[in-house]
């Protein structure tokens, strides 16, 4: 495997996927804590529509196909936020429930996205340079360029900066939104901020694992980290580390064996999560079983001692 590291492309991909995994994992903690896994799933599927829209718009305006992340990622962000806003307005105005509304939004955006993708891929559409768009379905980290890395850094850096500046407010708001509101923190502003952070976390990972599996990259490190840490700061840091680990090792493994990157990274994350659920101290399943056994033995001994008196 070490020979791989001498390749510049592989190094770029490695750095990129590690960074993506770390940032998505860290930002995903808030989605996990606020129980917004479904929302994240819908946002990531909806991104396909935005990607196709901005790609086609760029092609028709400039006459040249441009798959640069500087064009496609804003499209993804736009579509994600549009899907959420539309769902909110429908749910607020009619009897449609939130989970059904989200599911339908997924159908609309992802369905239209697939429609546009397949149409573009037809030679009769006259659009060229679309090869590589399909990679947004299952991920293809191997095609990451330094330019992509730059875009990821800019977006990710902005997100981390926003997170850091608003840390105390976001921490309070995530756990006790009512109290936060009662002491004067703007609920809408913080909600919007958290949604933006989640959308950024999702969008930077799309190239790596694809729209379908993105939710796993967002949530799994958070779920795993939660088992080891009792504080939000600890959880976010740990999730970042775990996400980075999965991203990096996953992309190396996929490059070595020629399997698609997305699934490998996700499976690594899932294994990490299962390990954490079983073996984490204080919360882990094995630990609890040990605890129960110890309590039972204690009770047994006490009973015997008392009975003999």
């Amino acid at each position, binding site marked *: 495997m070490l020979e791989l590291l001498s390749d510049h492309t592989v190094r770029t991909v490695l750095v990129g996927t590690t960074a993506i995994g770390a940032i998505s994992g860290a930002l995903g903690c808030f989605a*996990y804590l606020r*129980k917004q896994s479904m929302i994240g799933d819908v946002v990531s599927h909806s991104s396909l529509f935005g990607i196709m829209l901005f790609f086609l718009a760029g092609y028709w305006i400039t006459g040249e196909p441009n798959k640069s992340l500087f064009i496609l990622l804003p499209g993804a962000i736009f579509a994600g936020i549009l899907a959420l806003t539309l769902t909110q307005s429908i749910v607020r105005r*009619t009897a449609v429930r939130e989970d059904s509304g989200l599911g*339908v939004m997924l159908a609309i955006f992802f369905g239209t996205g697939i429609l546009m993708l397949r149409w573009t891929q*037809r030679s009769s559409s006259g659009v060229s340079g679309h090869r590589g768009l399909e990679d947004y379905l299952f991920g293809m980290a191997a095609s990451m360029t330094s330019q992509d890395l730059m875009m990821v850094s800019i977006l990710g850096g902005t997100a981390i900066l926003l997170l850091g500046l608003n840390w105390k407010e976001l921490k309070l708001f995530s756990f006790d939104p009512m109290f936060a509101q009662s002491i004067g923190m703007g609920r809408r502003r913080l909600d919007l901020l958290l949604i933006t952070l989640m959308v950024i976390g999702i969008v930077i990972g799309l190239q790596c694992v694809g729209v379908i599996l993105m939710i796993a990259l967002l949530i799994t490190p958070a779920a795993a980290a939660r088992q080891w840490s009792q504080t939000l700061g600890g959880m976010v840091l740990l999730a970042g580390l775990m996400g980075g680990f999965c991203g990096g090792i996953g992309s190396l493994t996929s490059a070595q064996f020629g399997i*698609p990157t997305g699934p490998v990274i996700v499976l690594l994350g899932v294994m990490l999560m299962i390990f954490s659920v079983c073996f984490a101290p204080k919360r882990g399943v094995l630990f609890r079983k040990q605890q129960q056994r110890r309590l039972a033995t204690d009770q047994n001994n006490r009973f015997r001692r008392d009975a003999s008196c």
Partner: protein
Amino acid sequence: MLIFWTILIAILTAVACSICGVYLVVKRETFLSEGLSHAVLPGILVAFLVFQDRTSPWLIITAGLSGLVMVWLVQLITNTKLVEKDAALGIVFSGLFSIGVILSRLNLKNVHFHADCIIDGNLEYAPLKGLSIGGYYLGPQAFVTLLTINLLLIGFVGLFYKEMKLNSFDQSTSKLLGFRPNLLHTAWLAIVSITCVAAFEIAGTILVVALIIAPPTAANLLVNRLSQMLVVSALLGAFAAIIGVAVGLQLDIAASGPIAATSGFLFLLIVLVAPKRGIISRWQQRAGQRARLLETLVLTLTESKPIHQLAIVTNIQCPPQQVQRAISRCRNRGLVQLDAEQMVSITNKGSALIELRSNARDQTVSLKGQ
């Protein structure tokens, strides 16, 4: 002739999915349907790799099992209370889907499972593979499979109609009465997994979710009863499927994207125009209520003595135009009159109306007292 079979298969798929969807939407388990549609992939691929036949009936069985494995794993993880339920679902189905994708890229013995099928389904070839039993041609295999599944669904729902209905709305009562809701639920999820696989042909495993969720959610805005919801969502689903197939043929692409998009846009349309529960209708209702409220306020203000028109406008803190219109409406109905000095006074008819309304209110109050 081929088009006929294609459309028929499309309709059968939509009907099957919408029946599944009605109960899932009512129980707020739409994320579960998303999960099932992803989780059946490894089951499909295991059967495919073993039997090397994409149309083998074993696919249905392994896919059903795959779905149940997902449900079992999620239950296992949720029971530890260490991971949140939706997150557990997302993680498990993503993990299973990843296994499926990796399996699909394996090239064993020159048999290749086209990853595109996962998204697109395979409607173009569905009418071509026929099924004959004892030399008797029954029709395309997909048609026979879907027809069987539809009959299974209708049979199951018909046989257990009351139990499913109770289970969907009040699970605790169901348990108390001994109807074994958990068993019923598990059986239902197995059937939904099987339907996902069958719908695979037409919509691809992931866009099946569109046909499962969108028609029932739209139907929910149109009707009140579960039975009506079943019928209406089947109709809506069939409609979306037909249009989707037509668009797919027109643009020369797979039907799955257009079908999902159509079902979604159909939902948006219904959200707007549904009678009573649609956005436009509710806006009209609210406008009507506001108008009636203003009229009542005008009458109340003029009840005891005449009052200047402008005083009414300032008293009622609403946009002046709306208040003026309310006054005009009252005048037109003969409830108030306007004299030369812009003074508005109530008429006998108006007093009678106020009397009537307050009597009704008193009656309601006294009834409540009893």
